[in-house]
């Protein structure tokens, strides 16, 4: 234990690519076998009252909560802000998104972003994980979607994010 962490920073940074690629392999495999899809889960429930995929998404939220809680007891330094909404004055403080704006701004971006992510995901047949998996299954449309996602990421960080921060700061959010 160094500074309360299981692995010191120098080693941890070296493990980032290895750990995440293993995580990706596991999730990719499970995603392909189960057809896991977050947006698909909500869609199937609304359309057919089918809960197979929705259970997966709910299990994700519950499992994240349970294991963050367990690990916060074992390595408190690594899970520093677990349920910090319960701390005074932190009720609606987000734990880190890309554009650095105030609380109200983050909530507005969350709502706008969430609605459009939901619409696009529903119309084009799946959440981003599903699109990655379908790409690996040989779906060319999903491949184009993923390429579009990568282009969108560069456009957002290079052009839109600074603009959003400026605009929100200007109107005081």
């Amino acid at each position, binding site marked *: 234990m*160094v500074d309360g962490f299981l*692995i010191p920073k120098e080693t*941890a940074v070296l493990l*980032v*690519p290895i*750990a995440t*690629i293993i995580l990706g*392999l*596991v*999730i*990719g*495999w*499970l*995603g*392909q*076998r*189960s057809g896991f899809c977050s947006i698909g889960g909500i869609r199937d429930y609304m359309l057919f009252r089918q809960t197979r995929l929705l*259970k*997966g*998404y709910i299990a994700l*939220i*519950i*499992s*994240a909560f349970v294991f*963050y809680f367990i*690990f916060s007891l074992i390595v408190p*330094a690594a*899970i*520093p*802000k677990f*349920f910090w*909404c319960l701390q005074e004055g932190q*009720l609606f403080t*987000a*734990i*880190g998104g*890309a*554009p650095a704006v105030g609380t109200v701004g983050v*909530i507005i*971006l*969350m709502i706008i*972003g*969430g609605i*459009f*992510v*939901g*619409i696009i*995901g*529903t119309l084009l047949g799946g*959440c*981003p*994980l599903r699109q990655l*998996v379908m790409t*690996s299954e*040989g779906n*060319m449309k999903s491949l184009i979607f993923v390429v579009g*996602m*990568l282009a969108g990421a560069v456009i957002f*960080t290079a052009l*839109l994010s600074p603009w959003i921060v400026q605009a929100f700061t200007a109107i005081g959010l």
Partner: protein
Amino acid sequence: MVTDISEKRKGVDTYLKIPLLGGAVIGFAAALIQALLFAAGGPQAYGFCVACHSRDLINYVTNSLTGSNLFLAPFSANAVAAGTLPVLTIIGVLVGAAGAAVLYKEFRVKKGDAKSYAVYGIGGILFMIFALCMGACPYRLALRIGYGDLVAVFGLIALIVGVFIGIKIAMKRMEGK
């Protein structure tokens, strides 16, 4: 003997096909990665995110090709600064899913027409822009809610509303045809 192995594989596969297990594994793995590697830098609840991890990867590639200085999350930025690579989750997902698809003979090339490619390309760009507005794809959204980030609850409600609108639009279009 050969049938034994394939029987066994089939037995495991029936469990792997349950989305509930997939969700539980993603939640566990994301928490484990944070517990092990948080020293590498934040943000919190960053164990798995298709949108943010794609952004880190593509921004890293763009930065190294063009010498630009696009944003990476500290988790990836510190790894790059130490001379290694940023998060490779996306590559892992693509390879893992391809492996499963080939092994179970579910790999089939499906082509679309030019119009559908244009729709999916623009859809992908817009999807990523709005996901990064949220600072989360639906997966990190779930992780953030599990982490106790109440702001992410607004995102989930908005996502549900979005899916509802999406279904309505799809139904309108089907009626039109």
